[in-house]
């Protein structure tokens, strides 16, 4: 955060002392949590620590006891588990009613959801019913400590050209949806202790009008959000063929192929690979940007990568500002040289030739 938010005086605020703690909605498919759920639980814990309060998780589904236990391993002090056959599929009506019951009983001061289709659908319904303020699509979440305990929910505005911090002073809980990939999950710790509260809530199937008839999973083999190495390409590749070359490098290093929107728009590669504002937000250990200019909409999705390597023909390309290492040159010369170099180094290591790493005593983790 760069500037101070105007301090709120106590007398502006109603008495909200009954509302304490951070509640995170755990989104899942068939009992398998979405990465955003644990990312938000991690961030929720950081906020709760500043507020000296608990972090709670909300798990709704059919037979989701395992998931509730997982929520504790990922940082929850208390998990509210709503378990019933009616909750097998996500449907707005039963899910929002169950969530509202938990919110009424547990009285969290902050409730967080992933800014996913489901998270936005659910949060939008709940916030209207309660009613309370809801900030969409946050990329920064912070809190002001006592006495205001305000959630500072910041999000991009005007096609990422500006950031805005949104506050909700007059209502509790304060609600927000947040983007995947921005916040870090805590390491899974099965020894962590927490309480599971079985919420007594049932709804007859006949009371629910919506019926989920089918779900066609998109058989995407890419998992760009969790990749530790991303080899990304932009319009500079010039054609869909270019991605084959990047795939070769990615295979050599054990990474995934990413793309700028320009390539997705012209159909060189599908949307599952897109990084940036309207694609995935990623934070790999190693990010290669080949022929990507570095437009702000792309950069917001990858600037937190540990090491960024940019290759571009244009020495003035903005991507060089955020890269740790830059190479000015034609990617069609550089990439093949990199593939060759990677192969050589690995072969040398395998055949026991004194590689640099061994000479320097590289650390194994």
């Amino acid at each position, binding site marked *: 955060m760069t*500037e101070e938010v105007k301090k709120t005086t106590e007398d502006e605020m109603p008495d909200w002392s009954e509302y304490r703690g951070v509640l995170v909605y755990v989104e899942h498919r068939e009992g398998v949590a979405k990465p955003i759920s644990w990312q938000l639980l991690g961030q929720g814990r950081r906020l709760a620590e500043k507020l000296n309060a608990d972090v709670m998780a909300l798990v709704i589904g059919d037979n989701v006891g395992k998931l509730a236990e997982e929520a504790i391993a990922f940082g929850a002090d208390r998990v509210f588990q709503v378990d019933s056959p009616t909750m097998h599929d996500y449907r707005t009506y039963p899910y929002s009613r169950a969530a509202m019951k938990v919110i009424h009983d547990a009285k969290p001061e902050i409730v967080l959801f992933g800014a996913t289709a489901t998270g936005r*659908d659910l949060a939008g319904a709940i916030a209207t019913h309660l009613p309370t303020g809801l900030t969409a699509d946050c990329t920064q979440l912070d809190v002001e400590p006592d006495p205001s305990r305000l959630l500072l929910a910041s999000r991009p505005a*005007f096609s990422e050209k500006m950031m805005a911090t949104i506050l909700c002073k007059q209502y509790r809980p304060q609600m927000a949806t947040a983007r995947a990939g921005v916040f870090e999950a805590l390491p899974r710790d099965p020894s962590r202790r927490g309480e599971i509260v079985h919420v007594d809530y049932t709804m007859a199937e006949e009371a629910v009008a919506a019926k989920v008839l089918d779900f*066609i999973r998109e058989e995407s083999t890419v998992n760009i959000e969790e990749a530790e190495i991303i080899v990304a390409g932009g319009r500079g590749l010039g054609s869909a063929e270019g991605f084959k070359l990047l795939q070769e490098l990615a295979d050599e290093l054990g990474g995934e192929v990413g793309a700028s929107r320009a390539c997705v728009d012209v159909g060189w590669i599908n949307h599952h690979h897109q990084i940036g504002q309207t694609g995935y937000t990623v934070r790999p250990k190693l990010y290669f940007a080949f022929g990507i200019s570095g437009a702000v909409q792309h950069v917001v999705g990858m*600037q937190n990568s540990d090491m960024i390597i940019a290759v571009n023909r244009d020495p003035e390309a903005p991507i060089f500002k955020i890269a740790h290492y830059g190479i000015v040159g034609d990617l069609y010369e*550089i990439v093949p040289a990199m593939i060759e170099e990677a192969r050589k180094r690995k072969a040398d290591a395998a055949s026991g030739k004194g590689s640099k790493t061994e000479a320097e005593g590289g650390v194994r983790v």
Partner: protein
Amino acid sequence: MLHIVVSVKQVPDSREIRIDPKTSTLVRIGVPAIVNFYDLHGLEEALVLKEKYGGRVTVISMGPPPAEKALKQCISLGADEAVLITDRAFAGADTLATSYVLAEAIKKVEETWGPVDIVFTGKQTLDGDTGQVGPGIACRLDIEQLTYVSKVTGYNGETKRVTVQRKLEDGVEVVETKTPVLMTALKELNKPRRAPMPGMLRAAQYKPIVWTTADFPNLDRSKIGLKGSPTIVGKTWVPEIKAADTQMLDGDTKVKVGTLFDKIWETELPARFGWDHAANGKGA
């Protein structure tokens, strides 16, 4: 017969908005106002359904008087009637206050032209960019909501049930529910038509119906405008992309790539990924 309401918003084309580098403020001058393009996909679907099942399409918009232009565009495309909900008292509304006013307007549409079967909103707006107004309206009207609709596959006038596909991050959900229902439109839903000549002629003559607070005698004043909006903007800033301490690598291709790999090899990555023990395969 179907009565479909489409909620549209006129938005500044935010792609055209620039930031004044000196003052860090938005430069809105000369930025064109457009109909939020997701809303046009909602309108197109409404028109397709009307053509198939008969009925009427009513378009509503809350905004300042110039939003009339957006409504005329909807008329040119084939909407039957268009209502502008405008009043200074509505200004400064966040999604909660907006959904309240739009829900009240839809109730008034029902009083005027009969029961509504389907409400379309866009997935989200270009300026607000929240996707919350749709679910908000559905809650307030206490009707079903189907967000992120990529295809309307069926409507049964007898059972009053619709079947749609919803496009989610990990796949496509096929879901069926009863009407009345609110759906939020994705761009995958359809390809909006171009205005036909008769539509353009009608739009040129057409004056949208205007409703102000005076037209809503039971309106709860505490729920509209700035006062009815729980969220407030604390501060805004221009995100500075944190410039890295960039090291540019020189030399011919071989030297550059060699230096780069030396740098990579100085990190924990080769050990982490097993590159330094390639014979064992990847993964440390």
